[in-house]
């Protein structure tokens, strides 16, 4: 199994994500510069890490969405391979149309960096090692994380079980009081209809070492572990 981490100019969570795969999960992982002309299809899963690709110029994620590597990514996504976009990676996936919706400026118009409670809404290939309905801890760090979709689309996401994580309190209540950025329906992570592309604003790579967590937890690593376990099954088939 080999996981690729895509690097754009301005990506800054690439090494943090790399360390989680390489050091903690001991999975073969490759840093893949966006201009690299190698075939991306040889990798089993692709991660778009966080950061400020192209300095967030024009709009967060939009310039990266036009990088040639995204064309390859679109092909790969059709084959059902897992793809995770974290923070700026999520913004790129939304801008490139691989995920529905848009990510707007936080409702308080400020960058927010803090640990949040997240309710696991559904088990899918990225959350199988977590319990559906449980509350987990991860930090967020973004200026444009207010997820938005039309009401129709929101209902569709609900119907298809595409809402994967919601901002909540420690008991799993998903009221506006526990919504850090004004996201519609407290959405923190969504998948595509097929379930193989995940976009999330919280940073799982920053929640993979208990020493870094105010709660001494490492819930974030379970997102990656779930993906690996699902992949192992897929690769056997």
């Amino acid at each position, binding site marked *: 199994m080999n996981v690729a981490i895509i690097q754009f*100019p301005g990506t800054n969570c690439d090494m943090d994500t790399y360390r989680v795969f390489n050091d903690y999960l001991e999975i073969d992982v490759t840093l893949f510069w966006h201009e690299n002309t190698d075939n991306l299809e040889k990798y089993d899963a692709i991660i778009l890490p*966080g950061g400020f690709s192209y*300095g967030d110029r024009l709009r967060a994620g939009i310039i990266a969405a036009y990088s040639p590597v995204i064309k390859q990514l679109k092909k790969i996504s059709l084959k059902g391979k897992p793809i995770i976009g974290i923070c700026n990676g999520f913004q790129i996936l939304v801008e490139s149309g691989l995920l529905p919706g848009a990510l707007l400026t936080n409702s308080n118009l400020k960058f927010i960096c803090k640990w949040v409670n997240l309710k696991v809404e559904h088990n899918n290939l990225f959350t199988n090692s977590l319990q559906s309905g449980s509350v987990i801890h991860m930090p967020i760090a973004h200026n444009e994380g207010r997820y938005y979709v039309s009401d129709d689309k929101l209902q569709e996401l609900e119907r298809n079980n595409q809402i994967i994580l919601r901002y909540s309190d420690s008991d799993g209540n998903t009221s506006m009081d526990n919504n850090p950025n004004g996201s519609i329906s407290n959405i923190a992570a969504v998948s595509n209809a097929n379930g193989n592309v995940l976009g999330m604003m919280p*940073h799982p790579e*920053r929640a*993979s070492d208990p020493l870094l967590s105010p709660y001494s937890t490492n819930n974030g690593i379970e997102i990656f572990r779930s993906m690996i376990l699902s992949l192992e099954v897929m690769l056997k088939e």
Partner: protein
Amino acid sequence: MSTIESIDHSLTDNELEYIEKSLNRKPNNVELSMIDAQWSEHCSYKSSKSLLKLLPTKGKRVLFGPGYEAGVLDVDNGQVLTMHIESHNHPSAIDPYGGAATGVGGVLRDILSIGTRPIAVLDSLRFGNLSNPNNRWLLQNVVRGIADYGNCVGIPTIGGELSFDSCFDTNCLVDVVSIGVGKKKQLIFSEAKNVGDILVLLGNSTGRDGIHGSSFASKDLEDIPTDRSAVQIPDPFIKKLIIEGTMDALDAGLVSGLKDLGGGGLACCLSEVSDMGKTGVEVDLGKIHLRESGMEPYEILISESQERMLFIINPDNLDTISKCFDKYNLQYSIIGKVTGTKHVVIINNGDMIVDLPTELIANAPLINWPKTKPKHLDSKSVSKPELPVDINETLLKVLSSPNLADKSWVFQQYDHEVGTNTIVKPGESGASVIRIAPEKFIAISVDGNPSHCYLDPYNGAAGVVAEAMRNVISVGAEPIAMLDHLQFGNPSNSDVFWTFNETIKSISDFCSYIGIPCVGGKVSFYNEDAKTHKAIKPSPVISVAGLIKGEHNLRTRKLHSSRPLIVMVGETFDELGGSEYYSSIGHSQDGIVPQLNFELEKRAQKLVRDCIKVGLFGAVNDCSKGGLIHSLLQMCTISDMGASIDLSNIPSNCKRWDELLFSESHSRFITTIKKENFTNLLNISRNHDIPVSIIGSIGGHNLQVYNKDDNLFSYDLDYIRSYAYDSLSKFMGGQL
């Protein structure tokens, strides 16, 4: 600023005379501009250099100290820690967003210039009163500037401090500390040492921003709108690419010298690399990539356009090095070469327009200003306020001072998590902790106390060093080095210069006594109101770095039920001059400030370090600004856990409860222990000759204070939060 032949400069008649004598001719306009930039106070330290020599700079871990781009410390196993502090006060006062952002950018380049990767940033900020909308505007945009820059470049802003005083109404202070890590064998210096090497200018194009930036920082702020072009334009995205390109080039091991372009632009950069390398340089202005056409030669030379680095390399290595830049689409130009002439030579359109001896440009004549002791220091009133009638009102008033308030409004705007090594985060202690290797951590604090320094420069300044040390000790670290940033008014004011002198004397006395080396620093003069000539309060800011080995030695201020007893280490004295208490209740700003007893401080620090090492202490917090009650509140709110204390158990000579609660005496810590360990602690305290006493216990959700049988007050933490501790966020418009 005088004008000779239509060139703006700030050189004095004496300096001009000295230049002419040294050159044996009149300098031309371009030469004058270059010398003016390099001889500005900002770049030359001409008023402070002779005094700064007093500071102790040697220590067992110090590899390189003041005089280098950053201080370098050996942190074992071939790893080095680098640290530097910079301010961007004048630019931030007129363009808070750009000024603060480029302040971060500048200090990151210093860490990079010595061959190490910046891993964290901290800020120390001072503004005038928040009731003034201009100060709120400044704070909002300074914080946004720091956040946008640090967040984008991907270096965590892991801590800092913020306070307010009306003396900063016209001169805010924006100080940035950065630390970096690297390999001892990859250190590199800002020197042009090999004749024949080429000079490669990497990064941003050179434009008209930041013209006269360092001269502008070396005079009083005036004519604000016209000086706006003196502020540089930040570009954190390019900086991120420069950091990666530079690290790749350094990994290739083929760089002979490296220097950032900061204050004084190319002019200062060239004179400093040739002075340090004991060589000369020759540069062709036509080779420099420019942002705009029609730039005058002097503008190109002193422009402080951001995001530029000068690489000094052997021409044979250009191919390899340029590949590192090409990967990130970074612009660069080969602008000149290293010569053996010991002169800085500038060519423009084939003409030699500058030919100056390096030694002359790089060494401004020093100035020794007259000193007189300020009058206000001789009239010490010791009037005390009446004992408050309404305890509750007084307490909430003090705790709602923005100086003591919760600073989440600030640090939640900073990405303090990127890099996945921030172990002790902002708010969890007085220092922050970052991991630099498995089981190896760096603690870092930054502190200041203008009120104490104004009333008693000697005890105030030494006290700031002590507080910064106590903060890194509180997270379990051994202090290994410090940086000082000395911010004052106009040095030609003899009161200001006396105070400056006293401050350095005090810092060097205490550092020498306690054995902490100074590995770098900065001086910022001319922080005064241009109209009234009223200077800011003396504002030394001190940053201390500490080393922690082993996760089990890490501490925060978080309470834990396994250690329920609250212990006060040290003695509380009746010395409330300059306290938050007095200023919050509107009592006059005078009286005796906390005195730093060097010996006592050393023993208290040693006791706490020893007790952390053997695992006696759980939560640890320094007790200073705002006194015991503030220190305790910090511990309770971060843990969401209450506490109950009895003031009569505090070792003290104070007779009043308000003094016990609010005294800011030095050499004190609050800590928690297990019940069964108190006897053990008493034995240790006797050996260290430092009083310790149990003052209460943790539990519940209320903060309760007794004075013997008197229940002084009892508040739910949520109540204190909403009616006092959240005051900063309320001032700034609510929602976090």
